[in-house]
């Protein structure tokens, strides 16, 4: 389970999990779950386009996810955000269906881009994955304070000179890079689970932002490790395990939070639950 190709799987999946845990924390905080779904899904079309003109899939993923991020931020300025996101995802998928109709790619290739191919990651692919992952983490850490401010109190932040649109673009670009890095490993549909479930579960356990972020990384790591081990042992698709473990941890988190609220002996912090991160700026 820990030799040769499997080692690549463990390493690449761990990198993806760490980045997903950090970026996912902000996705949950900002309520941008739809964008986190739309970018990987739409970038899948970019991979199809890249195979059509014969360049590396990761270039197609990068181009599409970055274009998608900018378009969502731009259209979302004038209209409802969820409408802009919905339109961007259908346009990208529409292009994807056009690209797919032009190629003779066999269906398993599509399946692996959607559901990931963590067991097929080669050593040469590890370098770009680690590099892009590093960029994502550094970007989040550099923009931590303004991003936190803008996510929790957008109006006050705007008044203090932290532009809402600017932060939105920065944040969506980080999501786009995460997408580019993660789709070849865990697939377009499952990076979404990894971005949402661990961060949402972590938020149920603690109100402190940095603790929640760390917890989110740990849960994400635990999820992928358990999923790889179970997929290896049972020969079933890894996506199934990522999805169900993710939903399971979220359910545990909700249950725990509900118990904390109803217990009379709960600590003061649990009684006066504030929205996460309010104390930061």
């Amino acid at each position, binding site marked *: 389970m820990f030799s040769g190709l499997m080692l690549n799987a463990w390493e690449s999946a761990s990198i993806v999990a760490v980045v997903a845990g950090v970026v996912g924390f902000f996705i*949950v905080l900002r*309520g*941008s*779950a*739809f964008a*986190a*779904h739309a970018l990987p899904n739409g970038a899948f079309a970019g991979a199809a386009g890249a195979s059509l003109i014969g360049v590396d899939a990761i270039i197609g993923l990068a181009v599409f996810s970055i274009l998608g991020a900018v378009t969502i931020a731009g*259209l979302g300025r*004038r*209209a*409802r955000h*969820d*409408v802009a*996101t*919905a*339109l961007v*995802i*259908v*346009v990208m*998928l*529409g*292009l994807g*269906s*056009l690209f*797919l*109709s*032009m190629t003779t790619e*066999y*269906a*398993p290739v*599509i*399946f692996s881009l*959607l*559901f990931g191919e963590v067991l097929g990651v080669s050593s040469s692919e590890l370098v770009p994955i680690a590099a892009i992952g590093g960029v994502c983490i550094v970007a989040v850490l550099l923009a931590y304070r303004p991003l936190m401010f803008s996510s929790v109190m957008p109006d006050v932040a705007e008044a203090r000179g932290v532009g809402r649109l600017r932060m939105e673009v920065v944040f969506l670009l980080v999501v786009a890079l995460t997408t580019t890095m993660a789709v070849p490993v865990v697939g377009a*549909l*499952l990076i*979404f*689970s990894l971005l*949402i*479930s661990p961060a*949402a579960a972590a938020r149920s356990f603690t109100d402190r932002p940095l603790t929640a972020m760390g917890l989110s990384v740990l849960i994400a790591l635990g999820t992928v490790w358990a999923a790889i081990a179970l997929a290896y042992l049972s020969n*079933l*698709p*890894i*996506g*199934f*395990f*990522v*999805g*169900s473990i*993710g*939903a399971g941890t*979220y359910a545990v988190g*909700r249950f725990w939070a509900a118990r904390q609220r109803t217990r009379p002996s709960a600590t003061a912090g649990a009684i006066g639950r504030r929205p996460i991160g309010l104390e930061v700026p």
Partner: protein
Amino acid sequence: MIVEPGFFSNLPVQTALLVGGVVAVVSGIVGTFTVMRGQSFAGHSLADIGTAGGSAAFLIGISPLFGFVAMNLMAAGVMEWIGIRRPRGRDLATGIVLGAALGLAALLLYLDTTVSSTTGATVNVLFGSIFTLPSSMIPVIVIFSVVAAGIVLAMYRPLILSSVSSDLATARGVHVRLVGIGYLTALALAVSLSAVTIGAILSTALLIGPAATALRVTNRPGRAALIASVIGVVATWLGVLLAYDSYYWFPSGGGWPVSFFVVTLIFLVYLASQLPFRARSKAAVRAGATEAA
């Protein structure tokens, strides 16, 4: 030539025009409220979630439509239960259900391919095709459409009130939660219907695009639903026509997919509605309209 030979006498084309038209009308009506309530993510997710139901139906050998409907009704119930009502938790509730359902879909699609030893099932369930519908499905599709549109029309006024302001609706004695559940049921039905017949891409495109465009043009929900339906039907029919014609565009090509054309048309109409027409006076617009007519 605008219409290539055999367009109207072709049976798959006739079915596509009929089913596409019905689905576009229902999507326009339900979609208007989806946009007003800010539940586009739920509307899109149900199309993907239904995939799990569709692949389960494939596994046990029943029509995928029933799998989609059963799965989506369940998913809508869970979304409502874990908190789609609160604006802050709305996308998260949807996202958690979507993540879990996609995992299930990964398993079921995998099992499909091991059972039938072809991978066609994956592509079919994921992308659907308007040209491969059996015409025997038409009555079922029409019945589900009438039920979905009927739910919306039956609670038309309380639905509008609670979509605009849930506080106001509560004050007026509307059972907001019940209306929300009824609306999600209609959404689940409408999306199952469109996802299984025309594919997940077109399902979201027809649900959100025309409605968002219509709500830019008018503030009145009834009129918006009407305009959205018209835009949806015209885009679908033009898309089918263009896809049919595109078989003749390139000597070697196999034609371009319907979804590409319909999505592009809907997106262009939406972008046009975003342009600042308001700079022109109403009289000028009216004069322009009469000249054009």
